[in-house]
């Protein structure tokens, strides 16, 4: 039945089309990277000249020459620490409960769905929640504490999800052998599961904190001011953070402030880089450690 007349294979054209499309796909993939590089180069070019020791240790000012990012850096540092203190215990505890204690069933599924959903809610809505609950209801006003609670809720789903994955990655043999020796559930968790999953959990925590350090909208909502010329002395003080300072300077029309904003971005990116690098190093270190 070789009725070849009915087939027009046109192999050459098909292959050529494949080559052209493959190249287009490659260009599309590289596009994102090109934008990334462009952005970084642009920021460095505009901001490097403003980046000096005075910049890092001065307060913001209406005069671009005197303006600095000191209050924002300190504010961000406070914010990260407080947020971590609140969100990490709660997040890890939730993950432990969901992975090790909760019974499989519709209720567990509901909580999982809920957590996944929370991860997808726009950050500005967390800001609204923070405004209504922490600033007004709990009367924390525009303080670091209100901001930390708000940010903690924002990154809580991420910590829970990544901690759950870290716990799940622990081989079940570890649990079984510990239980077989007569350990209680909490003993198994505390002595075995947490130490083993700690690197994974820590990586997840660092990554979610690096997300938190770059968040602007929720903190604007709870009232973090955009012009703070002092350092917070306690958790109840007003504050500003790096992204808000960057936002403030970017919004000003004078080109000098654009340069200051770029310098602030460089500082922020360096902070992010340090955090991500430590997450990667941590993971590599523990993976090597465990492989022994």
């Amino acid at each position: 039945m070789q009725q070849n007349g009915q087939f027009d294979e046109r192999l050459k054209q098909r292959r050529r089309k494949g080559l052209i499309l493959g190249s287009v796909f490659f260009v599309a993939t590289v596009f994102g990277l090109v934008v990334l590089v462009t952005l970084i180069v642009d920021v460095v070019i505009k901001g490097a000249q403003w980046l000096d020791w005075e910049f890092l240790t001065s307060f913001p000012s209406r005069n671009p020459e005197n303006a600095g990012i000191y209050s924002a850096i300190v504010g961000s540092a406070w914010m990260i620490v407080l947020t971590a203190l609140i969100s990490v215990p709660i997040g890890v505890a939730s993950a432990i409960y969901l992975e090790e204690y909760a019974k499989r069933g519709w209720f567990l599924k509901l909580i999982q769905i809920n957590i996944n959903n929370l991860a997808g809610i726009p950050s500005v809505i967390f800001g609204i929640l923070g405004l209504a609950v922490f600033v007004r209801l709990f009367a924390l006003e525009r303080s670091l504490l209100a901001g930390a609670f708000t940010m903690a809720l924002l990154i809580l789903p991420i910590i829970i999800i990544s901690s759950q994955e870290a716990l799940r990655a622990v081989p079940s043999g570890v649990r079984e052998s510990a239980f077989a020796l007569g350990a209680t559930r909490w003993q198994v968790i505390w002595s075995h599961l947490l130490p083993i999953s700690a690197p994974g959990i820590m990586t997840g925590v660092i990554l979610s904190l690096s997300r938190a350090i770059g968040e602007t909208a929720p903190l604007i909502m709870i009232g973090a001011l955009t012009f703070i010329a002092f350092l917070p002395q306690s958790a109840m003080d007003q504050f500003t953070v790096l992204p808000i300072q960057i936002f403030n300077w970017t919004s000003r029309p004078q080109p000098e402030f654009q340069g200051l904003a770029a310098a602030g971005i460089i500082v922020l990116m360096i902070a992010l880089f340090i955090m991500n690098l430590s997450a990667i190093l941590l993971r590599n270190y523990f993976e090597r450690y465990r492989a022994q």
Partner: protein
Amino acid sequence: MTEKTAAAGDTGVDVETGDSSRGGVSGFRNDETGVMSGDRARDVATAKVRVENLDFWYGTHHVLKSITLDVRANEVTAFIGPSGCGKSTLLRCLNRMNELIPDTRLEGRVLIDGRDIYENADPVMVRRRIGMVFQKPNPFPKSIFDNVIWGALVNGYKGDRDELVERCLRQAALWDEVKDRLDDQAYGLSGGQQQRLCIARTLAVQPDVVLMDEPASALDPIATAKLEETILKLKQRYTIVVVTHNMQQAGRISDRTAFFYMGELIEMDDTEQLFTRPSKKRTEDYITGRFG
């Protein structure tokens, strides 16, 4: 035993092109319908598929060792042997499917109608001419109609689509069961029906040879029987090679059988001969179930 049909007025093997798929007689038994042993010489000279000194490696693992064999036109040839003997690997060498796996190497030749399919040949065209049905039915997640016509359209089919689909489904013995629901999803069919759909899909590009890799191993006995019946009907028009681990199946459907062990071709003969009077001890051991 195998069916032999000779359509009236057939000229048998076309010596010039080696094209023996216009129907014609198969088998070489002198006690059957008057086929002379002279045909045997002619058929060997124009074997549909010839493998010459084929060696194959997965990485450094030498999987096929110096295989030489012929597959005759309009016959069902069975490859049998214990697990891991390389029969499926050899099958996939016949239509260059092994090239899709990284880190493989092939030496030797495979000839279809006297033409080398590796040297100076486009693998896409090779696979068009040599179809394959897989162990587990793998229809596309499309309608029955779209499944059958897919390969033909990709290869530039210009003829009547409905006619092609009907013809192929009839040849695959599936037409009556699905003719009223060609637009239904293929996944709604039973396992046996899906496998016959895969056969119809393969036939639609009008190959010369159809390779089948343990086609019935995922099917229940009834579906298997239907499939075997289909294979026997198909050999009128196509040359078929079947890999099977089921010796009884090989005995039922094949004209010739090749027995493989540890990457080597131990013995190849007419099926009846191989199963009743094997010339190698290892063949006999396998057939009598001393290992498997």
